[in-house]
C-alpha cells in the first residue's frame, strides 16, 4: 500500500520538473493593477478554501487507517449529531462570505475603469483580430496591437461574425466580443510584449487566433502611429470578401469608384 502512495507522489512531481519554461500569466506575472488584484483575490480564496480541500483528505486517510476492520473493533452506533451538523453548515457559509468580499471589490475594479486615455475598438473576426484607434483614425488587423505604456486603455469589443473572447492573461482581461453589441474592458500596463489568445470557441481555427500586444513608450507609440497614418491602414483582406473596415482609405475608394 505504501509503495502505491509513493508512486503516486513521484508521478505528480514529474511534470512540474518538465514544466520548465513558464508563460506569462496573471498569477506569476500580473502586469496590470487589475491582474494583481485578481491574483490577491485568488490567494485569499486559496487560503480560505485550502482547509476544506485538505481536511476531508486527511480525515479520510486517518479514518481508513484508524477504523480498518483489521483492528478488530466493534462499529460505533451514532448516526446523528445536531451540533456537528450545524457547525459544518455555518462555517462554510461564513467562509464563503469572507471569500465574497474581496471578490466583489475586485469585480468593481474590473468593471469601473478610471478615466480613459485611449479607446481601442477590438473587433473579432473568424479568425483574426481587428483593432481601431478612433482617436487617431487608425485601423489595422492581423498584427500586434500597439498601445502606450502606463496609460488607461479602454477596450470596446464587438464581433462581426461569431462570439470571440479577448484574453490576455497577464492583463487580467478576458472579455467576450459578441456580434451586435459592445462590451468593455480596460488595462494599464508597463512597457513590454504580452501574449494572449481567443478564449471562446469560434470555429475550426479558434486555436490560431492569437493576440499580441506591444506596450511601448510614448515616443515609440508616436513613431508607430506615424507609420500607420501614412497610408498603411487598410485592413488586409484575406480573400477580398471581407470589407468590414471603414478606414478613411475605404471611403475615398468608394468615392473614386
Amino acid at each position: 500500500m505504501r509503495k502505491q502512495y509513493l508512486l503516486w507522489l513521484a508521478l505528480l512531481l514529474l511534470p512540474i520538473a518538465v514544466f520548465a519554461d513558464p508563460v506569462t500569466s496573471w498569477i506569476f506575472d500580473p502586469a496590470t493593477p487589475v491582474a494583481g488584484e485578481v491574483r490577491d483575490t485568488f490567494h485569499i480564496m486559496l487560503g480560505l478554501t485550502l482547509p476544506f480541500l485538505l481536511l476531508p483528505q486527511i480525515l479520510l486517510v486517518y479514518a481508513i487507517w484508524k477504523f480498518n476492520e483489521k483492528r478488530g473493533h466493534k462499529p460505533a452506533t451514532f448516526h446523528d449529531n445536531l451540533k456537528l451538523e450545524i457547525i459544518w453548515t455555518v462555517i462554510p457559509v461564513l467562509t464563503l462570505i469572507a471569500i465574497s468580499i474581496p471578490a466583489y471589490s475586485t469585480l468593481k475594479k474590473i468593471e469601473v475603469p478610471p478615466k480613459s486615455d485611449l479607446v481601442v475598438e477590438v473587433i473579432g473576426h473568424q479568425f483574426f483580430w481587428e483593432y481601431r484607434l478612433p482617436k487617431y483614425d487608425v485601423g489595422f488587423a492581423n498584427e500586434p496591437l500597439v498601445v502606450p505604456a502606463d496609460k488607461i486603455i479602454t477596450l470596446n469589443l464587438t464581433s462581426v461574425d461569431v462570439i470571440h473572447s479577448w484574453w490576455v492573461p497577464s492583463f487580467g482581461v478576458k472579455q467576450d466580443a459578441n456580434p451586435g453589441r459592445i462590451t468593455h474592458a480596460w488595462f494599464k500596463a508597463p512597457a513590454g510584449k504580452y501574449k494572449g489568445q481567443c478564449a471562446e470557441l469560434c470555429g475550426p481555427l479558434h486555436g490560431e487566433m492569437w493576440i499580441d500586444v506591444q506596450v511601448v513608450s510614448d515616443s515609440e507609440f508616436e513613431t508607430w502611429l506615424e507609420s500607420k497614418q501614412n497610408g498603411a491602414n487598410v485592413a488586409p483582406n484575406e480573400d477580398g470578401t471581407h470589407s468590414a473596415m471603414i478606414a478613411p482609405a475605404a471611403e475615398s475608394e468608394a468615392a473614386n469608384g
Partner: protein
Amino acid sequence: MDSQELKTPEQKRKNKKLALYLLIPVMLIMFGFTYVQVPLFKMFCQKIGFAISPLSDVEYADTGRMCKVLYTGVVAGTLPVHFKAKQSVQTVEVGKPFENEYRFVNMSKDTVHFRPVHSILPEAAATKFTMTKCFCFDDQTMAPGEEKTFKVISVLSADMDSQVEQVTLNYTLFEKNPEEMEKNRQVPNVAQNSGGN
C-alpha cells in the same frame, strides 16, 4: 402508508393521475417557459438599457454638464456596405439634443438589405441615451452603388450618472435576405434588438 399488494387497479389510476395531471403539465410549462423567455428577455434588456425605446418622451434640460460621445460601427459578415459618422467624436451637453450624420455607401453592384443594430456603453448611460431619429429604427435597402446620408438625433437624460464622461454608440449592420425583409415589413421594428444580457 401506501399499501399495495400487487399493482391494483386503484394503484394504476393513482399513478396515471399523478403523471397526467401534475408531471406532464410541468414538462409542458417548462417547454413553454423557454419561449416566454424571448419576450421577457427583451423586456428585461430594455429595462436595464440594452435596448432603448426611440419614441419615448424626452425631457430636455439645461445641465451645463459636458459628455463625450464616441460613434463607432462595424459591418457583420460579408455585407458590402461602408458607413461612417461625419464626426467620430462629439462633445455634447447632457440634457440637450445633439445630432450627427452617417454616410452609407453600397460598394457592390447588387441591391443590399440590412438591419442596423445599435449598442451603447457604459451600462449606466444605456438607459439614459434616447434617440429621437435614427436609421436603426428600420431595416434599410440600398441600390447598387448607392450613397445615402442619415441624420441621427439623440439626447442624454439629465439624470444620467455624473461619473459618466464618455459614451460609446456602436452600430453593427447585419445583412438580411430580401424575402425575410418583406415578411417583417408589417411589424414595426422598434429597435428592440441591440442585444441584452
